[in-house]
């Protein structure tokens, strides 16, 4: 038995030696290829036009513009615009308002991009655009859905397309706590959803968009789709009543299907400090790819304005009046959501 063991061990050792002696031909081929490539790279480095490299390092922006020109970008007419824009941004020579809204950035960068998404990805159909006020303050109230507030962005873009006005979204405090998100939100005109800011914006004649469902609407499961959640305490209504501005109910169909939430991970949400952690058929399964919104077909309907300036004095402090108007707005949105769902042939068409 002992002999047999020794022999078998020797056999193994022989095998190893064999491996070391004769490298498989395929592998040695690759290795020599690699070495050759490295040699070519090193000699290539020496042959690089150092003069040219130095000019690139000297003025990278100019080289970049030059490369883009060679790649066929047509600068005529836009050169000055682009340069002006970059110069403004780099020298801080642009204006933000008291809320941190940056109109230059919004109209030059964000809205054109959103317009493309709204047109080609979601194929947004707009109904009742004549109900968007072309001047003066108004409170726009919309349903909120879709896990991420894409609907707020698309709505802002659509309103700008229709009446060339920047609708100012009101956002939750979580938005402003989150790095980058809060910064971006302020730049495109979002401010905190609080009575003071709403009244300040309405007082200066702005269009103000609120999503009274908040995270309750945004984070609801797919099985709950198009069922309006609770509308809070009606704080938005008393702001509108106090300012005497009309309320425009807005129904958005399509936002529910962009990230169909089939479940949630509450523990992970607690750890990350977010209101919910969504599970969709593609996320977190496919990671970043799962974060691409599904191309659902959207319909946005602007309902008829609800006037508040004819309400009696002190109506803003009267809970009965406020609840009645809140219910009226909520019912209008819910009804037209059902109507629009009937109009739509399919989720994606």
């Amino acid at each position: 038995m002992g002999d047999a063991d020794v022999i078998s061990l020797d056999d193994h050792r022989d095998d190893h030696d064999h491996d070391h002696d004769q490298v498989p031909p395929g592998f040695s081929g690759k290795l020599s290829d690699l070495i050759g490539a490295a040699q070519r790279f090193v000699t290539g480095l020496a042959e690089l036009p150092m003069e040219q490299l130095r000019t690139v390092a000297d003025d990278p922006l100019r080289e970049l513009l030059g490369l883009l020109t060679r790649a066929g970008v047509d600068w005529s007419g836009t050169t000055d615009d682009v340069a002006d824009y970059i110069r403004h941004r780099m020298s801080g020579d642009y204006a933000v308002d008291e809320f941190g809204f940056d109109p230059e950035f919004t109209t030059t960068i964000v809205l054109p991009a959103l317009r493309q998404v709204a047109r080609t990805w979601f194929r947004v159909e707009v109904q009742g655009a004549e109900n968007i006020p072309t001047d003066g303050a108004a409170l726009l109230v919309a349903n909120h859905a879709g896990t991420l507030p894409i609907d707020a962005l698309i709505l802002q873009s659509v309103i700008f397309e229709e009446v060339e006005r920047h609708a100012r979204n009101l956002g939750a405090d979580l938005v402003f706590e989150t790095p980058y998100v809060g910064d971006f939100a302020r730049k495109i005109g979002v401010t905190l959803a609080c009575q003071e800011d709403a009244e300040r914006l309405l007082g200066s004649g702005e269009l103000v968009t609120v999503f009274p469902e908040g995270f309750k609407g945004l984070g609801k499961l797919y099985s709950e789709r198009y069922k309006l959640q609770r509308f809070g305490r009606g704080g938005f209504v008393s702001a509108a009543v106090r300012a005497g501005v009309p309320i425009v109910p807005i129904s958005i169909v399509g936002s529910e299907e962009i990230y169909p939430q089939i479940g949630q991970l509450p523990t992970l949400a607690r750890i990350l400090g977010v209101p919910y952690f969504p599970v969709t058929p593609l996320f977190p399964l496919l990671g970043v790819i799962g974060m691409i919104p599904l191309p659902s077909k959207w319909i946005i309907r602007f309902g008829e304005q609800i006037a508040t300036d004819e309400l009696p004095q002190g109506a803003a402090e009267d809970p009965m009046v406020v609840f009645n108007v809140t219910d009226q707005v909520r019912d209008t949105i819910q009804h037209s959501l059902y109507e629009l769902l009937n109009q739509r042939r399919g989720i994606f068409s």
Partner: protein
Amino acid sequence: MRVRVILITGVARPLGARFARSLAADDELEVIGVDVLPPKYDIGRARYVRADIRSAAIGRLISGSDVETVVHLGMISSPPGAGGRSMMKEINVIGTMQLLAACQTSQSVRRLIARSSAAVYGASPRDPARFTEDMAARSEPRSGFGKDAREMESYVDGLARRRPDLVVTVLRFADLIGAHADSALARYLSLPVVPTPMGYDARLQFLHPVDAVTALDLVTHTDLPGTFNVAAPDVITLRQALAVLGRAAVPVPTPMAPTVAFFGRQSGWADMTGDRIDAVTYGRSMDISRFAAATGFRPAYSSRSALEDFAASLRPGRLRVPRVGELLQRAVETARQQQAGRSSGGTDG
């Protein structure tokens, strides 16, 4: 006619000296400047009295000189060289208490003006865009100058309750900035590379010392009881401010900000306490309509021009505007030349 006697605390520092100088130019006023250190700046015809507001001597000075108006500018916003934070707290809190006690018992004093700060509002993501005087801080400053200013205001309120015959005015100043400004924020902004909160772009609001003196002057000459915000009307973001100053920003993740600030404090570069970190993270701005309505005050400097005044007195930063503009100009010209070359080449071919 009897001359009015005005006592100003904190004349060793720039604002106190500037205000004393401007008041003393008026023949009908007798101006007494008080501080523990002799004034470094010209206080004009004002009389300097070396006194510590933390001692009972201030009471004797007030009653002995028949002081009619007390202007309290003696709060300090960063720890003095020696003594650190506990010394700062003692000067701010004990000093104010002692001064107010002297005012309360005095027969001659009939007006008190106290300089407070926007720091009393704190800074948080739950803040409204603009603070009016009636709004409370959403997250109360728990450390540093903000806390001291709150305590000072509560003592001043107490005095106003006990002596209703006194005219008590509190002015909440935005951060002072102008040529040669020397404050914690000014030192922070003028670092060669400025650590900034990653993913945030705070709204900053400033007040030029010239405007601060104008505001103090207004309330010294009229009876205007109450609390007022005093600031430039506009806001400028931290990123814009750094562009104006030509400073490079180094983004620091916010959880690491206190550590970075700690090293900054230890090395004496910039005294960024917790409440100041919040202010450059979430930003803060004040509504100034109440003071404007009461006095017709219109600041001569905007936040941006006050900052530009400061920038002009600094050594220009590496990323200063002319340099950036020059690079861009060269880039645009090259792009145009290449464009011209390409199109003329095209017609030839």
